[in-house]
């Protein structure tokens, strides 16, 4: 009854099962004999698991086994109590996800209110957002974007998978467009970072 499976597929399966975190193709290839068709094997493995209770997912180029989402209600796994995110944090996360990369001042402009100090910190600590380089504008403000862990956590294959993103794009709601601030309501009193007063 042994091993009708090709050896490389078994090895790939074992590597992904054993890894404590998702792996990209390069990390997988480094564990496999040279010349292995990693992409092909991954696809083969993904298909094998597609209908099972554990599935192989690809989130932003990182591969990992996960329990099937449709079992969510049935699985009673003892989890650490999850801290509920504040409304401000949820909104801020959505804004960063859909508009990235963007600066703190731009987040505040979209929300029409100053960000309280801990909001970005909570999202950063959760590992969902990260700095994405500086804007080439005066003051060179820092921009923020989402991380790979964000895709993994919210079970998104890529940013294109964000709920409703196509519709939002088509409706022009993701356009960088000066909103109220440029018509004289003034920016929210963003305390210290007056640096990006680019209006």
């Amino acid at each position, binding site marked *: 009854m042994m091993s009708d499976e090709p050896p490389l597929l078994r090895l790939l399966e074992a*590597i992904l*099962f*054993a*890894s*404590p975190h998702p*792996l*990209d193709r*390069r*990390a997988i290839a*480094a*564990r496999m004999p040279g010349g292995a068709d990693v992409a092909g094997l991954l696809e083969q493995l993904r298909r094998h698991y597609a209908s099972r209770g554990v599935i192989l997912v690809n989130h932003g180029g990182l591969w*990992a*086994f*996960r329990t*099937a*989402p449709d079992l*969510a209600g049935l*699985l009673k*796994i003892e*989890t*650490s109590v*999850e801290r509920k*995110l504040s*409304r*401000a944090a*949820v*909104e801020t*996360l*959505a*804004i960063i*996800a*859909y508009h990235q990369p963007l600066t703190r001042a731009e987040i505040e402009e*979209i*929300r*029409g*209110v100053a960000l309280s100090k801990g909001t970005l910190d909570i999202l*950063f*600590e959760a*590992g969902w957002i*990260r*700095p994405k380089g500086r804007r080439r504008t005066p003051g060179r403000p820092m921009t923020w974007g989402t991380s790979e862990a964000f895709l*993994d*956590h*919210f*079970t998104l294959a890529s940013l294109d998978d964000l*709920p*409703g993103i196509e519709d*939002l794009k088509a*409706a022009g*709601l993701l356009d960088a467009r*000066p*909103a*109220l601030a*440029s*018509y*004289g*309501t*003034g920016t*929210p*009193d963003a305390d210290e970072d007056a640096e990006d007063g680019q209006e």
Partner: protein
Amino acid sequence: MTEGAATDDAFEDAAPPPDRLTALVLDIDGFEGPIDVLLALARDQKVDLIHVSILQLADQFLAFIAVARRNQLELAADYLVMAAWLAYLKSRLLLPEPRNDQEPSGAEMAAALQFQLRRLEAMQEAGRQLMARPRLGRDVFGRGAPEGVDVVTHGVFDVTLYDLLKAYGEHRRRISVTTLEIVPTELYSMDDAIRRLTEMLGHVPEWTILSRFLPTGLRGRLLRRSALAATFLASLELARQGRLEVRQEGGPYSPIYLRSSAQ
């Protein structure tokens, strides 16, 4: 392009009932600033935000501010800024547009407000949908007991960028606190001066110049000057208690002499 007096007639009867405004005012802490309140008011119009009446919205917001005032509720400044802006927008929408005006037209301002509201509504909805997705650690799970494979590209240490920046932040905070603590200890305190003077008092029956009472071996100009000031103040305090006498002849800046009280 968005607004005209004609379209507003349709909403004439749709003014929000006063208790709705009162409810909003009482719930003010549940809102994330004036735009959020505007969004709630706009939803009350029960039309797609594209068709919302900005003019009516401005009226509703101004009515909301009035209710807040009547309830003696202190509103943050940005609510008042928004109210002023909406009042201005209203006048721009109602009055004929002046020719060759550098200012944005009322219609442009209304369009900007409408865009802002639609974008915020879209983001709030996106946030809700995001949170409703199957989530790792709540709905889907990774391997509970990974055996662990040496992962080549990820290094050995489990340190995130957050950890790194947090460490630097904590370091900065600590050194800024340290600076605060060091500065005061550079000064010679009045308590020390009183203690020192009291100890020396019994031994100075004759007039002795103040500088003789200063502690020796002080390093730094600031410290020496603070010692002089503290010792002088200490001498006044002890003179007030009747334990020593102070004498200065020749007016300001001339030498000051101390001696024990004759008792």
